[in-house]
C-alpha cells in the first residue's frame, strides 16, 4: 500500500524528518506516536501533499506510484485521505456540496459516471446516522461554527463517504471528549477492511484503546526510534517518551 524509504524532509533549511522507513500493507493499522516536535505532523502533511516542505532525500511509493510527485487532489482521488487535526472552516461552501464534488471527482478519476443524486443522498444520510450527526450539518457551510467534536465527526463522515484506501488520521483524538472519541472511533472501526490501511498520528495512547493498531512506531527527532506491537503504546503511556529519546541520544 505505502512504502516510505529513507525519507528526509526539511522546512526551509531545517531538517524535520531524517530518514523515515515505513512499510504499510493493505488492511494494517499503524500508529505513529511521539512527543511534540518529533515530526509527526510533518509526516502526515508530506504524505497528503501540503506545501511548504522540501523532500531532500528518499521516497514514498503508494500503490506502486510516486506519491510525492502527485498534486494533493490527485492523491486524494487516488485514495489517500487526511483527517485534519484542525479541520478548516469554509464559509459559503455547503458540506453536502463538497462531499458530492469530492465523490464525483474520485469517480471521474476512475472513469466512472457521476453519482445519482438520490443514491448520493441515501448514502450520505446513512453515514450521518452512523456517526450520530444531525442531518442539518449537511446543509451548513463546511465546518463553520462546528464544535471541535463536530468537526472531527465531519472528517470521519467525509472518510466514510469517499472510502479511501489509505487513511491518515492526524491527532484525531485531540479536542475530543470521551463520548465524541467513542463515536469517532466506532466510525473508524466500521471502515476497517482488508484492503484499507490506516496511519494514526497521535500523541496519546488514549485513541489506541478504541482503535487497536497492528503496529506502533515511535517518532523522535525525525526518526522512528522504536517499532513494536500495541503493547509498545502501553509502555509509552507508563514511561513517557523520555526513555526512548534518551536511549536514542546515548546510542
Amino acid at each position, binding site marked *: 500500500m505505502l512504502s516510505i524509504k529513507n525519507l528526509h524532509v526539511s522546512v526551509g533549511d531545517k531538517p524535520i524528518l531524517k530518514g523515515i522507513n515505513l512499510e504499510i500493507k493493505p488492511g494494517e493499522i499503524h500508529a505513529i506516536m511521539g512527543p511534540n516536535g518529533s515530526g509527526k505532523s510533518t509526516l502526515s502533511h508530506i504524505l497528503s501533499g501540503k506545501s511548504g516542505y522540501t523532500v531532500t532525500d528518499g521516497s514514498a511509493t503508494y500503490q506502486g506510484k510516486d506519491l510525492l510527485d502527485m*498534486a*494533493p487532489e490527485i492523491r486524494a482521488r487516488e485514495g489517500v485521505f487526511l483527517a485534519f487535526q484542525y479541520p478548516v472552516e469554509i464559509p459559503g461552501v455547503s458540506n453536502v*456540496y463538497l462531499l458530492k464534488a469530492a465523490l464525483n471527482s474520485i469517480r471521474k478519476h476512475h472513469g466512472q459516471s457521476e453519482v445519482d443524486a438520490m443514491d448520493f443522498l441515501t448514502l450520505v444520510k446513512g453515514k450521518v446516522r452512523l456517526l450520530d450527526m444531525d442531518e442539518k450539518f449537511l446543509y451548513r457551510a463546511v465546518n463553520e461554527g462546528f464544535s471541535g467534536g463536530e468537526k472531527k465527526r465531519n472528517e470521519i463522515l467525509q472518510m466514510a463517504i469517499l472510502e479511501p484506501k489509505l487513511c491518515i488520521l492526524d491527532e484525531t483524538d485531540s479536542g475530543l471528549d470521551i463520548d465524541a472519541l467513542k463515536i469517532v472511533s466506532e466510525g473508524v472501526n466500521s471502515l476497517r477492511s482488508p484492503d484499507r490501511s490506516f496511519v494514526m498520528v497521535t500523541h496519546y495512547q488514549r485513541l489506541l484503546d478504541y482503535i487497536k493498531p497492528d503496529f506502533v512506531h515511535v517518532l523522535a527527532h525525525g526518526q522512528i526510534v522504536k517499532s513494536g506491537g500495541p503493547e509498545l503504546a502501553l509502555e509509552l503511556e507508563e514511561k513517557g517518551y523520555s526513555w526512548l529519546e534518551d536511549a536514542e541520544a546515548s546510542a
Partner: protein
Amino acid sequence: MAVANSSQYLEAYADRFADLSEKSDSWLKQQRTEALAQFTATGFPKARDEEWRYTQLSALDKTLFLPAQKSASCAIDVEWLKNYQLADAWSIVLVDGFFSAELSQLDGLPAGVVVSSLAQSLADPKSALLIADKFNQAVNVDENGFVAFNSVYFADGVWVHITAKQILAKPIQIVHVATQASVAINTRSIIVADEQSQVQLIETFVGLEGAYLSVSVAEVFVGQNADVTLYKVQVESEKALHFGGTYVKQARDAKFRHDNFALGALIARSDVHTDLNLASECEFNGFYLGIKRQHSDNHTRINHLKPHGISRELYKGVLDDKARGVFQGRVVVAEDAQKTDSQMNNRNLLLSNDAEADTKPQLEIYADDVKCAHGVTVGQLDEKSIFYLQSRCVDEETARNMLTFAFANEMVDKVKIKSLHDVILGQVLLRFPQEGVNKEWL
C-alpha cells in the same frame, strides 16, 4: 470636450432651477434656494475633502451631464426589466428619474400605505404637508455637494408612507432605470415607516448602457419600534457614474437593516448614514465587486446618539483587474450613548496585483461605558483552506474559485427575499471575475 466644473453646472442648470422653483410650494422653493446657495458655495466634493479623498470625481469636470428629459417608457423592453423587477413585490419604476405608472405594479397595497411619485405627491396638499415635515430632515444640504445638487434640481422620486402597525406582506421595490446616455438623473426618495410598522424595501439602480450620471438621495425615517430593511442593488451600466446616499433616522427601539450590493457603474459612491436613538438597532451589510477599471467607494456612518444602541456592520469587497474598492466606515458614540454595543468589519479580497483596496474604519467614542470593536482585512485567499479543499479532491484552480465565490456568497446568502436573492446572485455571477464558477457550490 468642454471643461464643466460646478459653476458650469450652475450655468447649464439655471433654467431648470427657475422652472422647478416656480412649480414648487413655498417651503420647497425655499429648500431649493438654500440648497442652491450651498451648491454655489461648495460645488461638487473635492479630493481634498477627507471624506472624498479616495473618490474619483474628475469625470464630472470633463463632462457636463445635462438633466434627463422624460422619455417614453414604452421604449423599455418589459422582458428585460423583469430581470430586475421582482414579480412578488409592489414596485414603483422611475425611468430616467421620472415615474412610470405603466411599468409600476402597485395594485393591492393595504389601505393607508402610500407608494407614489414624489412629484405627484408634492402636488397633493395633504401629502405635501407630510413630505414637507420630512424633507432634508435626515440629511443636511451641507453634508456634501451631491446632497445639495440633488436638493436643488430633483424633479421626481418616490414617496413611501407606511402607516403605524402596518406589517407588509410583500416587499416594496423602487426601480431606477436609466435609458439615456450623457444625461444626469437626479431622484429623491422619502420613506417613512410609522411606529410599529414592518417593511422590506428594495432600491434597484439599473441602466441600459452608456455614460450617465445617477444621483440619488433617499431619506428613511424609522418610527418607534418599527422594523425596516432596505436592500440596495446597484447594477448601473458599466460606464455610469453613481452617487447614491441613504440617510436614516431611527426613533427609539427602531430596527433598521441595510444590505448594499455595489456591482455596477464605472465610478460608484455610496453613503449610508444612520442616527440611532435609545435602544435602537442597525445592521449594515455590504458587498462590492470591482472588475476591469471599476471604482467602488462605500461610506457608512453610524451615529449612536442615545444609550443602549446596537450596531453591526460587515462590508466585503472582491477586487480584480485594475479595480479599486474603498471602505470608509465611521461609528460615532456620543457622550450620552452609554452601553452602546457596536461592531464593524471590513474584509477585502484582492485577486490581481493591480487591484487596490483602501479601508478606513473610524471609531469616535465620547461615552465611557461602551463595547465597540472593529476589524479590517485586505488579502488573498487562505492557503489552509485551499489545501483543505485539495485534500478533498478539488483541484487548486477550482478551490480558489470556490473560495472566492464563497467569500462573496456569504453576503448574498444574507438576502432573505428569495426572488431578490436570485436576482443578486445572478448579477454577481454575471460579473464574477473567474470562469467556471458553479452555482451548485451554494
